[in-house]
Every structure is written in structure tokens, then in C-alpha cells.
């Protein structure tokens, strides 16, 4: 009960703030402080989004964007996870590759998009590859950090009782790295929507990114705003999904604010 109440008390202030912001925006347009054809009103955006000839196209493009982001996220994360595990188990290779991985963090990967398009055309492949690349690095780096950050005392104990390299990996290092892995996955989840939208903008045929570009070119600000809102919602939903998965997987963590329950002895 107390928990519910505290959740409510955390939710209502930002909700009120958001409502106030929307009201101001609506008022600014309604009272013609800004022209409707420059910045559409919230109500106008909603009306346009649900209109008969826009809604079906919005859902279709949303589906495409979600699909692209998910493919890229899944593929990139899996590759990042795999390479991290491999490098961890092969310390010699790791020494060569790890510095490059860190350096590559500074490469804005979206600059590869035109090259991908040049090499692979305008289909799904170059876009998916771009999103995968973007998702790959945060997962790989976070995972490697988690694997090598394993508690030394625990490692010593596990080795003393006879754990080999493989047992150490599965029973100790991998579970230790789960928390870092989820940090990486959360970053990758946000990046995946961002980079998917960006890739769609370059070849504006499918996806919300593409629809947005076409809408701005046709000067239909309501549709561009509606696409933007949907993109934000997808991004939040994907992040929320990962956060939820984290909560389900990591059940051993003490609850925030929970004091150690010493029962004597």
C-alpha cells in the first residue's frame, strides 16, 4: 500500500507539469501567438494522426520502425554479447582488440549510413546492419567490463574449490556481469530506435523516419509531429521492456532502502 502511494506521489508531479506544458502549447496556437501552419497544436496533431487517411499509414510505418529497431537491437546485442564472451575467454586477443573497441566508441556510427547505403542499396539489409553496429558497441563494452569486474574474493574461492575456466565463466563471471549487461542493453535499446529512424530518413520509403521526412517535405507539420511522438513512444517502450526484463532477471538485489535484516548470530 505504502509502495503504491509513493509511486503515485512520484508520478503526479511530472504528469501535471507535462499537462501544463501541453496546455500552454495548445493555448499558444489557439490564441494565434504562433500560426497553426508553423507549429500545429497538440489537438491538431491528434486529430490528424487519427484521421482516416493518416492512421493506417502511421501504424504501417510504426510496424516497420519497430521491426527494424528490434532486428538491429537483437542482432547487435547478440553479437556484442558473443564477442565480449570470446574476448574474455581469450585474454591475448582481448589485449589487441579492447583498445580498438574503446576507440571506436568515439566514432559516430551513423556516419557509416551513407556508406552502407552505397554498398547494400536501399533495402532492409543496410539499415539493419547500421542499427546492429550501433547496438553492438555499448553491449560489448558493458559486458566486457562486467566480466572482468568479477569480485576477486569470489574468484579465489571458486578456483580453490576446483572450478575450471569454463565453470568460472558460467557460474561466476557471467552472473556477475548480468547487471552491467543490462546497462549496456538499455543504452542499446535507446540507440536502436534512434539509429533505425535515422537509417529510414536516408531512404524514405518505409518507417516513421521516412514518413517524417516525406511529411516535412510536403509541409504537413501535424504528420511530422505525430511521427515524432510515435518514435519517442517506441523508444520509451523498448527501454521500459529492458528495464522490466532486468527486474525479472535480477531478483537477488536488496530493495532500495531496505536495511540489512540481521536476525541475530
Amino acid at each position, binding site marked *: 500500500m505504502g509502495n503504491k502511494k509513493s509511486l503515485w506521489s512520484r508520478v503526479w508531479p511530472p504528469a501535471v507539469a507535462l499537462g501544463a506544458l501541453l496546455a500552454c502549447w495548445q493555448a499558444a496556437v489557439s490564441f494565434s501567438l504562433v500560426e497553426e501552419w508553423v507549429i500545429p497544436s497538440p489537438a491538431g496533431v491528434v486529430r490528424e494522426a487519427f484521421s482516416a487517411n493518416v492512421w493506417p499509414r502511421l501504424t504501417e510505418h510504426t510496424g516497420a520502425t519497430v521491426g527494424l529497431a528490434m532486428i538491429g537491437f537483437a542482432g547487435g546485442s547478440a553479437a556484442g554479447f558473443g564477442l565480449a564472451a570470446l574476448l574474455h575467454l581469450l585474454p591475448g586477443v582481448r589485449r589487441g582488440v579492447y583498445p580498438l573497441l574503446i576507440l571506436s566508441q568515439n566514432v559516430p556510427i551513423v556516419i557509416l549510413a551513407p556508406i552502407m547505403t552505397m554498398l547494400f542499396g536501399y533495402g532492409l539489409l543496410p539499415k539493419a546492419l547500421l542499427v546492429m553496429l550501433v547496438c553492438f558497441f555499448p553491449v560489448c563494452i558493458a559486458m566486457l567490463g562486467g566480466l572482468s569486474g568479477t569480485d576477486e574474493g569470489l574468484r579465489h574461492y571458486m578456483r580453490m574449490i576446483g572450478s575450471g575456466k569454463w565453470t568460472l565463466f558460467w557460474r561466476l563471471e557471467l552472473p556477475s556481469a548480468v547487471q552491467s549487461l543490462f546497462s549496456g542493453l538499455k543504452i542499446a535499446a535507446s540507440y536502436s530506435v534512434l539509429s533505425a529512424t535515422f537509417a529510414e530518413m536516408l531512404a524514405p520509403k518505409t518507417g516513421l523516419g521516412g514518413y517524417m521526412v516525406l511529411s516535412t517535405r510536403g509541409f504537413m507539420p501535424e504528420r511530422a509531429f505525430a511521427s515524432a511522438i510515435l518514435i519517442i513512444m517506441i523508444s520509451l517502450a523498448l527501454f521500459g521492456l529492458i528495464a522490466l526484463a532486468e527486474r525479472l532477471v535480477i531478483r537477488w538485489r536488496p530493495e532500495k532502502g531496505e536495511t540489512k535484516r540481521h536476525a541475530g*548470530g
Partner: protein
Amino acid sequence: MLEVNGLNVGFRDGRGVKEVLRDVSLRVEDGEFVSIIGPSGSGKTTLFSVIGGLLSPSSGEVRIGGRETTGETGHVAYMPQQASLLPWLTVAGNIEQSLVIAGAEKGSARKDALAWLARIGLAEYAGAYPHVLSGGMQQRVSFLRALLSPQPLMLLDEPFGALDALTRAEMQKWLLSIWEENRRSVLLVTHSIEEALYLSDRIIVLSASPAEIRDEIIVPFERPRREELWEDARFNALKGRIYRHLQTSGRKEQPHG
């Protein structure tokens, strides 16, 4: 049970080889409780790493159960100073996993873990995660984990060093009561002279670096041990004897030794 013969261990550092163990030989018989005591930095941890097989000595051999096991892991049950329970496994799960790694069958490991947790009064914590346990309770679980391992030799590495004095005394009493019912071969490393005298059959005194065996004391008190051992005149005499050894070897201790 355990035979350590002529162990020499050195580490290379900037100026050459730093000798840590010099010609250390010792034995632990079946069902015997032996303690190793020495000033800090006297290489006790190194000695355990060698016996556990994590570290290969420059020369000498380790034999467990009559077979040479130098440089081989998996022949000892181990209780470290920090309880080292895996935070993502339940209390019972922690015991079970260690027993399985040590070579026990999964089903029987589970059964043993639950039965013994009930026996030491921690049944209600079997399904809890370790962070809800107090330090003393965690060490009980850690001891149980070592006790139930199929390996006949137990290495206890300053197991109560991180506990407060009162909990420590309680834990010594508790450990002794369980051990006296289930005699296993035990090698204990400790800083505490009283702890060594209270628990062991035999005490091996090490000097500071490089560690050599200074003295070996057969503890004369009958078992089961009384708590009021310190009232015995022999207790204080032995305490003095060990203390003098530690003092004289402490004198040549280096600043960070």
C-alpha cells in the same frame, strides 16, 4: 591425509626473487585439527594457495590422501575469510552449487544442504538470498559448504577474522561442536593464539618472511573442549610460548611485511 614436503616458494619482483616459503613441511592426519599461526605477511595465504593447487611451488610437493596433487586444484574443501556466498544464489543454492562443483551429485547435494541448514537452525533462510544474513550467519553457511564437500581435507583461511569478538567466540564454540561430531581433517590459518589453542590438536608456528616452521605444539587438552580453557595453567604457558615466537619473528618483519 595431507603431506607437504620441502615446500619452497618465491616470487620474482624488481630486485630479484623474494622468498615467501622456505622448506616448509607439515602433515595433517585423518580427523586431525591443525592450526597454522604466524605474523601477518608470513606467507600463510601463499601456503594455502599451494595446498589448494592454485600456485605451483619452486620445489617441494603436496600429497593429499597419499596421491601427489602439487599444482592440481579440486582436492580440498575451502572456507575463506569472507563468506564468499554468490549473491544471486539462495543460501541453499550456494551450498548446492559448491558441492556440485566439488563433484557431488546434484540431488544429494540439495538434500544435504537442506538437511544441514535445518540442523544448524537456518532452515527458514534456505530460500533467502545471502544479503539478508548477518556476518556470523553467512560464515556458518560458508563453513557448512566446506564441511559438506566430498573432499576429506578442509582448509579454513582465517574464517572468523572479519567478525566482531563476541560473534567470533560464539562461532568458535559452534564450529567446535559440529567438528567434534564430524571429525574431518582440518587445516586452519589464524592470527589468534587463543583460537588456535581452543580449536586444534596441533599448532604449527611460522616465522615472518620467508616463512619457516618455528615450532610445533601438541595441544594437550582433552575433547570435547571446555569453554573455560583459559583457566588452565597449561593454556597460559602455551600461549606465552607461541607469543614469544611471534614476537621474535615479528622483529625482523619488514615495514610492509
